[in-house]
């Protein structure tokens, strides 16, 4: 009997911790005594990750005038923190395997997540937020609770899906009614298990209710808005068929003009296809 989001992670060893390579990168980035050389060495040991990272850095995502051919070059141009965040996004996508295809098309799921990530990164840049790459990662992470549900409780998840279809309900509302919790609270537990920074935990936990975030309501509001944009633009699909309702408090907190939508749409359309090609 599943009674809490915590139960879902018990015994789910495949995703209950992040790949060792990411933990090592993270440790090196956070350690003031480690050098760029150390970080480069750790990344280079994972050939797949190295190749993906270079593809992303050379995509429309960054639009650098010159090709970035090596990890040391990427570190010096993008920065260690930002490269760490991109490595996290790539590692997370590779982690989930064997999701029942009748519950979600995994490619569409990641497309939605990438769309949210690009939208969040763009909105964050308009607000002059620091290290915008963490918002891209937040987009990748925001719905991962749903993947855990599809793996661990496929039947209950299917019932929630059917319930939302039948009653024209938002999926996260149907989940809460069916299970007593929704994918956002499952995602929160996952972020804790992965020992990710508290702002990622709050973003994931509150992306539908950003006004309830205790320490990072702005970050949560940005991803909340980005999720609405990705749905409205029809980028991929997380299983939710409706554009989620806007949280009024979050909108006011961001203090963005409505006119930010046009350049944000343009930026997303410019980057989305390329990001999907390089990251998926």
């Amino acid at each position: 009997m599943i009674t809490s989001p915590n139960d879902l992670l018990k015994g789910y060893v495949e995703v209950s911790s992040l790949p060792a390579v990411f933990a090592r990168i993270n440790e090196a980035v956070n350690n003031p005594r480690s050098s760029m050389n150390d970080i480069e060495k750790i990344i280079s040991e994972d050939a797949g990750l190295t190749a993906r990272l270079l593809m992303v850095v050379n995509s429309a995502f960054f639009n650098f005038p010159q090709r970035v051919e090596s990890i040391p070059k990427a570190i010096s141009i993008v920065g260690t923190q930002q490269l760490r965040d991109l490595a996290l996004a790539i590692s997370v996508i590779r982690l989930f395997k064997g999701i029942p295809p009748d519950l979600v098309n995994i490619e569409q799921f990641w497309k939605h997540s990438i769309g949210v990530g690009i939208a969040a990164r763009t909105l964050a840049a308009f607000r002059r937020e620091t290290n915008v790459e963490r918002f891209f990662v937040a987009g990748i992470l925001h719905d991962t609770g749903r993947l855990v549900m599809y793996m661990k409780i496929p039947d209950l998840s299917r019932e929630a899906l059917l319930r939302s279809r039948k009653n024209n309900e938002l999926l996260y509302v149907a989940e809460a009614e069916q299970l007593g919790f929704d994918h956002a609270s499952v995602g929160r537990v996952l972020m804790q298990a992965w020992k990710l920074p508290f702002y990622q935990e709050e973003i994931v936990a509150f992306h539908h209710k950003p006004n309830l975030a205790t320490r990072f309501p702005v970050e949560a509001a940005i991803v909340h808005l980005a999720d609405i944009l990705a749905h409205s633009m029809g980028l991929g699909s997380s299983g939710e068929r409706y554009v989620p309702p806007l949280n009024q408090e979050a909108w006011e907190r961001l203090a963005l003009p409505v006119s930010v939508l046009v350049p944000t749409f343009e930026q997303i359309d410019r980057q989305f296809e390329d990001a999907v090609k390089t990251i998926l």
Partner: protein
Amino acid sequence: MGKLNLDEIQPGMVLAADVLDRNGRVLLKNGLEISATYLMILKQWGITDADIQGLSREEVNAKAVESLDKELLAKTEAEFQEVFLHADRQHSFDQELFRLSVIRAVHKKMGVSARDN
């Protein structure tokens, strides 16, 4: 006067209000005629809209869909009404999001069908 998105503003249009940066400092003065250079400066400053004389938001919105296939537009609007079931259509954000999403979707459909033919 109407608040226009930056991409709708053209050289020769006249400001109906001061353009302020995010700290409330005046960048361009009310009554100024917009030039291509000013447009570029506004973009670089991250300004996304401005009040323009003699144009209403309604006129500009109507113009944006002028060239679109009317039948396709109506059909797409109906599809988006469904997807926006839980949105607050009274809110200015949702209204603009709806408008832009519909136009974008129609452009995509027209682009695809043109290529198919």
